[in-house]
């Protein structure tokens, strides 16, 4: 396990939708060590308001030393982040936490909802490294509307994955809920990877349990340190004990946590 604190120059910031941004920074040390499902803690301002770093999944990574984040503006920190400009310096700590186990068997099913799609892009790319044919896999992506979903879908299609979509407003793909798409493909897959809203993941974990398919989920909780030190990021584990999302996760097997 290696972790770095790195001062990173902003290489690009693109507005993908009204409140969604893709940020690329030069972070050679973190990028070189990153594994899909891991995250970084970003210091969004060098003043004390906001005080704490913000956690973001690693969305993209390049051997050239860049790291991509995909984020939605929801509050103080993300709004500050959306206002950075190329050349600004950002302080990142990472890569942090336990990521996805890269399944060699196939086909797998990748299911992402909203910003939960962020880490799955990096996952999808890394899965291809083990001479896998993406055509056999399944990718189910959902979001509020086409504006938000469409650019993310392109990422998977560019890699050769077949993608099924759903949107809350029906503006792209199926009108409605991503987990509904799962039933048709579940019998055929050996592993499900998912990240998205908690209720969505809960349903998926339950479907996988019933179908006896291994399922990895990526969780979100409020975090102060991301390092396993503050013990602030607990969720109840399946055994009744608490688990710490930043170290034991953020990626868990469905059966490891209480739903």
């Amino acid at each position, binding site marked *: 396990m*290696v972790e770095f*604190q790195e001062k990173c120059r902003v290489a690009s910031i693109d507005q993908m939708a009204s409140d969604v941004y893709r940020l690329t920074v030069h972070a050679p040390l973190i990028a070189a060590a990153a594994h899909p499902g891991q995250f970084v803690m970003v210091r969004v301002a060098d003043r004390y308001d*906001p*005080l704490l770093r913000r956690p973001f999944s690693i969305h993209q990574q390049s051997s050239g030393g860049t790291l991509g984040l995909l984020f939605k503006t929801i509050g103080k920190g993300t709004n500050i982040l959306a206002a950075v400009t190329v050349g600004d310096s950002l302080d990142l700590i990472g890569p942090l936490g336990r990521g996805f186990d890269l399944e060699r068997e196939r086909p797998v099913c990748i299911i992402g909802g909203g910003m939960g799609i962020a880490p799955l892009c990096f996952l999808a790319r890394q899965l291809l490294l083990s001479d896998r044919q993406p055509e056999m896999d399944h990718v189910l992506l959902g979001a509020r509307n086409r504006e938000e979903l469409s650019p993310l879908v392109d990422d998977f299609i560019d890699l050769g994955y077949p993608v099924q979509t759903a949107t809350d407003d029906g503006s792209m793909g199926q009108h409605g809920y991503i987990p509904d798409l799962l039933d048709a493909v579940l019998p055929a897959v050996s592993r499900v990877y998912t990240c998205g809203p908690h209720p969505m993941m809960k349903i998926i974990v339950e479907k996988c349990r019933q179908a006896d398919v291994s399922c990895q989920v990526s969780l979100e909780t409020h975090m102060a340190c991301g390092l*396993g030190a503050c*013990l*602030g990021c*607990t969720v109840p584990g399946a055994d009744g004990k*608490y688990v710490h999302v930043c170290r034991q996760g953020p990626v868990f097997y469905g059966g490891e946590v209480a739903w």
Partner: protein
Amino acid sequence: MVAASDTKELQVRIGSLTLRNPVMTASGTFGYGREFSNLVNLHRLGGIVVKGISLLPRPGNPPPRIVETACGMLNAIGLENVGVERFITEKMSFLKGLDTPVIVNILGDSVEEYGEIAHRLDGVEGISGLEVNISCPNVKKGGVAFGTVPEMAATVTGAVRQATRLPIIIKLSPNVTDIVLMARAVEEAGADGISLINTLIGMAIDTKTRKPRLANVIGGLSGPAIKPVALRMVWQVASAVSIPVIGIGGITTVDDAMEFLLAGATAIQVGTANFYEPSAPEQIIQGMKEYLHQQGEHCIRDIIGTLQTGI
């Protein structure tokens, strides 16, 4: 020997314990040290105070446990810890390999429990001192915190004093009317040092759901927001006792640290800042040397308590 005296310019003492510099990390904000080993050169620190340890393991509070506030944060971790036995077997092996003093923060539900845990830790290799967190409720006294009643604080101090030969530091709660009374009580009961402040009690509410933001409703406020209160208390206590005082509360920069030393603290602890700026302790150590230089002083002991309050 210029080199030797040079390396001693930051050296301070807490009772029989010598620290190579006055900069420690605060309990509960630095895990068991190892969590920061990728990011911080642990060998440069003046000392490491580990997460509070109780006799038996504690699961801690249900989530949510933390929330950010203006220039601060609230935590209601609920003293989650592995318990003293697992601490010794699982955590000390790493810690005793360090060349940096390790201070074990201890807590209990009763005077007896404080005594027992201090006894258990006495003589364990690699432990340089105990810091006694008395901000815990005394279950035998209806849950009143030990740290809010001078007599109760003195009793705990006495029990720990009896149970160990290690230097003992009593960590005071700021949630009291008269911090000096508390400090005098634990000094008389045999403390080798006093650290302060622990967190202020606070609260935050989610107005959309109309629920508290912490499952525990209330929690401890830490970070830059509390620094002025901490500094005032350190100044009051350092002026009133003759044992060393360790200043804690929102310290992030060398300037913050020097405020506490000028107010009379012999050493300081960096807490919440470890979360947002893990390099803070090392930056402070470096900055202290520069501060000495700027002020034309030779060693950090010439700074301690030199605040000029006259006109």
